[in-house]
């Protein structure tokens, strides 16, 4: 008689991790994509599609931190695809190129993401906007930023707070 295979604890933990990641992705879609008419079913579909990719393409990744990090990248792509299909992304519609052109979808996604980032940056106070611009877009180090802005305080702390404010604004722009 063949022995009955008991699910080992590692497998159980993997399944728990996947379930947790799935719940987070579905939660994100439901919270963030309401203006795009994304409902419960859309959220479940996107989350499930991400989990399928995780299981099929990344079977060796089983720890929660690894799965979350990869899932975020996959979810970003799946959500962009969903928005494209649902709303017809203007950048793609204007481009009038075959959707299969290499990299064109990613370019359009990057452009939209940068537009969102700019939209959030323009809502920041001028000093914060300058800090974020210098640190993230011009990729300057803190010593340079301190000199450029003539700031004597804790430049790192200020950047951290501005970055936090930027993230809050990004959450409100879709």
């Amino acid at each position: 008689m063949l022995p009955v295979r008991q699910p080992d604890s590692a497998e159980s933990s993997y399944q728990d991790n996947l379930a947790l990641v799935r719940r987070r992705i579905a939660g994100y879609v439901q919270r963030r994509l309401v203006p795009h008419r994304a409902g419960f079913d859309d959220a479940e579909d996107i989350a499930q599609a991400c989990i399928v990719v995780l299981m099929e393409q990344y079977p060796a990744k089983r720890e929660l931190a690894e799965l979350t990090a990869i899932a975020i990248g996959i979810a970003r792509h799946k959500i962009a695809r969903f928005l494209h299909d649902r709303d017809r992304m203007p950048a793609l519609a204007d481009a009038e190129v075959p959707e299969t052109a290499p990299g064109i979808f990613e370019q359009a996604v990057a452009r939209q993401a940068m537009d969102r980032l700019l939209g959030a940056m323009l809502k920041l106070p001028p000093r914060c906007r300058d800090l974020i611009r210098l640190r993230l877009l011009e990729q300057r180090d803190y010593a340079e930023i301190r000199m450029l802005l003539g700031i004597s305080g804790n430049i790192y702390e200020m950047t951290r707070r501005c970055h936090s404010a930027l993230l809050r604004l990004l959450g409100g722009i879709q």
Partner: protein
Amino acid sequence: MNRPPDSEIDAMLLAYTTGEITQPEERTLFEAAAQDQDLFDRLLDLESARQAIRNPEERRRALAVLDAWGHTERTETLDVPRAAAALRQRAQRPPSLAADLGRSVVSTITTTVVLRLCYAAITVIGATFVTSAPSYEPAANPGSSPVPPILHLVHAAIAALLLAVQFTPFLQPHRIDARTHPIAQRCLAQFIAGWRFAWAAWLALYAWLWIFAVSGANPYPVADILNCLTAFPLFWAFFVLDQPSVAIPTNPRRTAAFRKAIGVVWGIGAGVAVLAVAGREHLWGLNEFGLVFQGIYVGLSIAFLFGRFDSHWMKVPRWMLAPLYGYALIQMIYVFFFRLPPEWQIYTYVVALLFKLCLFLVVTHLLQAGNLARYLEAAEDGKIGPPQ
């Protein structure tokens, strides 16, 4: 898993955006994100922006948009391209040894001239109070100071005036809104109370010296105690700026460290005063050398407080700190004061008065301009201080 505090999460998110996150931090961040929907949402929001930032073409486009925005808005934002050009120009220009040497020579000449002028001013002022012919012999009786009573009176009158002016509508401190910063508002009140106490103690000290100088009696054992009393409110003011000094309903033990520090400092002050008095009276085998501890105690109180003024939140010009630290340093010569030639004692006395005026001007400026209020508000907001 314990979720890291928000400040750490924010720091990790910034490091993640800039690509400077370490592997352990990244692991902590993603584990926390899996447990926390808000953090997961923020990470996913950030992910798109992060990918866009990695694209040099998109960065260039974003900078052009921001430049256009800044141009049309005509706000007071930084002219980054021009500033960047200035930075590049500055970076390209190598530091010149001649310029470094020139700066050194100029500062030497300036120091010599300025100090000579200061000495002239002090001796002119001090000489008007010197009653006897110059002598370099130390005073035979330490109790009989060559400092004329009028100088004590001037000192006391100035202390009284500067104390009184704090209770008038002039030079009123910048207020803190108790609705937004209740702790900072109470800290400011504590600081002001300590500050006024210091001036009241100086008034008492110099009034006492004046009264006894007029009568010719020896004021010193009591004057030493009063001198110690001037240090205590300065320590108080320092601890108000340094420790959580206001209890809150949710944390009544918040002031524990402050109360402990105040208690210990008060005890040390009392001990120092006892030693000073014992030294004056030649008790317990002591002599006037006991006063050295008093000089150190008073000097430390001033140095600790001025160390807080060094904070960039206070925005005290660096040069202005020099006379303040100078005031702390001259406390150390207290033990030698009575061994100095009479006119030197007078000059030192005048210098102490000038330093005290500097101190008043700096603290009044901090209070009135709101620099101290901003410091306290920042402390309440958690922007400064030890990591929580």
